């Protein structure tokens, strides 16, 4: 990525820079650390002043309780299924549409592309009421498809893949394949996918994170006691519907955060690159 190159300013950082950056890292990470701390104490201890600052001995008990009594395990599976399906389909459809917008001439291309970009500003609030009526009629409340279907493809993904393929895929490659008699599906499989693969991976990760953390619509379409995703289950814990102590609530938060933090620790660099590349141009 651009970030890796040594472009930009080459001044070495002074001690003050390190102090400030260290502070920023501390502020960024402390709430996550404290989440772990709170999840390792009893419920009584968490709500006692002064709040605990070091891990306690109850992490395992809390995890077991959250897993068995609150069904965080089921929520974890649901969330993985939803985020996985949404990421796969968004990447697939965005790559197809991004390729068409970047490299295939067709009538109305510019208008349609402008439309794609324009749809990004429409908030989900504008669609939840009709969608809720529809899923109620279909009996889909608490069914995962009601969360997956509206997210099968995203304008952001289409735009992201278009920007990437515009640069990364030489037209000659597509034309040469055509001259050789390759039909469009063959071109997609043998030319576009190989070139687009790095961007598809980044987009997949971004969409997965987004879908994993999605709150508004899942909160309406699913219920905490029915068939929730992690975020919906957490909302149930947080709104005090259950007589559950704060340590368990925060253990739930930990369970929902930990998988993504692991992904970030392993693939953080790629995610950083994906975020920066998607947004700079606009």
């Amino acid at each position, binding site marked *: 990525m651009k970030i890796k190159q040594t472009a930009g300013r080459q001044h070495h950082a002074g001690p003050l820079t390190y102090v400030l950056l260290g502070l920023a890292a501390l502020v960024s990470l402390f709430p996550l650390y404290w989440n772990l701390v709170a999840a390792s104490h009893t419920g009584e201890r968490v709500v006692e002043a002064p709040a605990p600052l070091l891990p306690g001995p109850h992490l395992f008990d809390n995890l077991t309780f959250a897993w068995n009594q609150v069904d965080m395990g089921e929520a974890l599976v649901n969330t993985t299924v939803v985020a996985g399906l949404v990421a796969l389909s968004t990447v697939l459809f965005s790559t197809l549409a991004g390729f068409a917008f970047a490299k295939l001439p067709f009538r109305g291309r510019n208008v349609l592309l402008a439309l794609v970009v324009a749809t990004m500003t429409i908030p989900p609030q504008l*669609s939840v009421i009709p969608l809720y009526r529809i899923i109620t009629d279909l009996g889909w409340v608490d069914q995962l498809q009601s969360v997956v279907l509206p997210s099968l493809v995203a304008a952001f993904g289409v735009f992201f893949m278009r920007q990437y393929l515009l640069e990364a895929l030489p037209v000659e490659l597509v034309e040469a394949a055509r001259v050789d008699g390759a039909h469009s599906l*063959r071109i997609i499989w043998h030319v576009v996918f190989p070139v687009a693969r790095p961007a598809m991976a980044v987009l997949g990760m971004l969409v997965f994170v987004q879908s994993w953390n999605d709150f508004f619509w899942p909160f309406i379409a699913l219920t905490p006691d029915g068939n929730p995703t992690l975020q919906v289950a957490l909302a149930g814990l947080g709104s005090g519907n259950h007589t559950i102590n704060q340590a368990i609530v925060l253990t739930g938060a930990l369970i929902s955060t930990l998988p993504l933090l692991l992904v970030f620790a392993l693939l953080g660099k790629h995610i950083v690159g994906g975020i920066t590349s998607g947004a700079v141009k606009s």
Partner: protein
Amino acid sequence: MATSARATTDGASPPDPPAPPSPLPPPTRGPGGPKGSGSRKGSGGRAPGSSGTWRSRLYRWDLKATPYAFVAPFFLCFAAFGLFPLIYTGWLSLHRVELGGEAQWRGFDNYTGLWDSSFFWNALANTFTIGVISTVPQLLMALGLAHLLNYRLRGRGFLRVAVLAPYATSIAAATLVFAQLFNSDYGLINSVLGWVGFDPVDWESSKWPAQIAISVIVIWRWTGYNALIYLAAMQAVPQDLYEAASLDGASRWRQFISVTIPSIRPTILFTVVVSTIGATQLFGEPMLYGGSLGVSGGSGNQFQTLSLLMYEKGWITGALGQASAIAWVMLLLLLLIGGVRLLVARLNRETT
């Protein structure tokens, strides 16, 4: 974006399926992109002569129809889950509807009802103030952070991932943690304030402290993300601009103000728009921060946003028509923001 001159025929490309998804090549311009996976073309070849017209007709049809087939999934999905509900919401906003009930025509009653409702104005004002408190410091701090990250650093990989970690945390998880940290009786933040010598603050039922606490959650989650966006933009600023500036004797600060900021102005505008859209829709943070009182935005509605009011009207009161009217007001607000954005972009172009 013009396709920059790049070495596409950069030898040594493997003859077989392109290299594994190795460390990412730049999606935007820059050397080192995926090279020459092109040797793969047309493994099928074509059978010359045989059934030529049928084939060429199929071929032409393929050329014409394929682009539409490729963009169709997006537009079908948008039509079903975006456009149709949008219009349906507009229709509902002109009716009196209850959950599962029939709709009765009401004209603009729902809108005039909002105009007369103090809850609506309260929610609109809260959305605005929380929006300002959460967006302005966030973007300013992100600019500063990006500037610092732009130095040559040891451990910059770690620092970048560290400031992005909040972005990986969900609204729900982050809010539940911060609700504990901000708790008025036992929260860590009041303890720290106490050690420094301040009186404890009531972060839940006092209006401004509660709005600040909610804004802190938003700021915490998004500052690093925006900083990385700014950082990428800063690194694309041509080096000679800085050299020219330092030849003119401009200090580092001066360079930041008169070279960096103007150069990344489009990116700043982009983040302002995205954050403003996000602030207009704010829902999860106030909802969960308020615990059992979340939907009404606290005991005195002191942090009820438009989205929360819409949810309360639609799902607690069961007045879907009123809720739809609120949704449409939000759309109008966003269109207004979009209009301002276009205006600013145009002014930008004229002044530079």
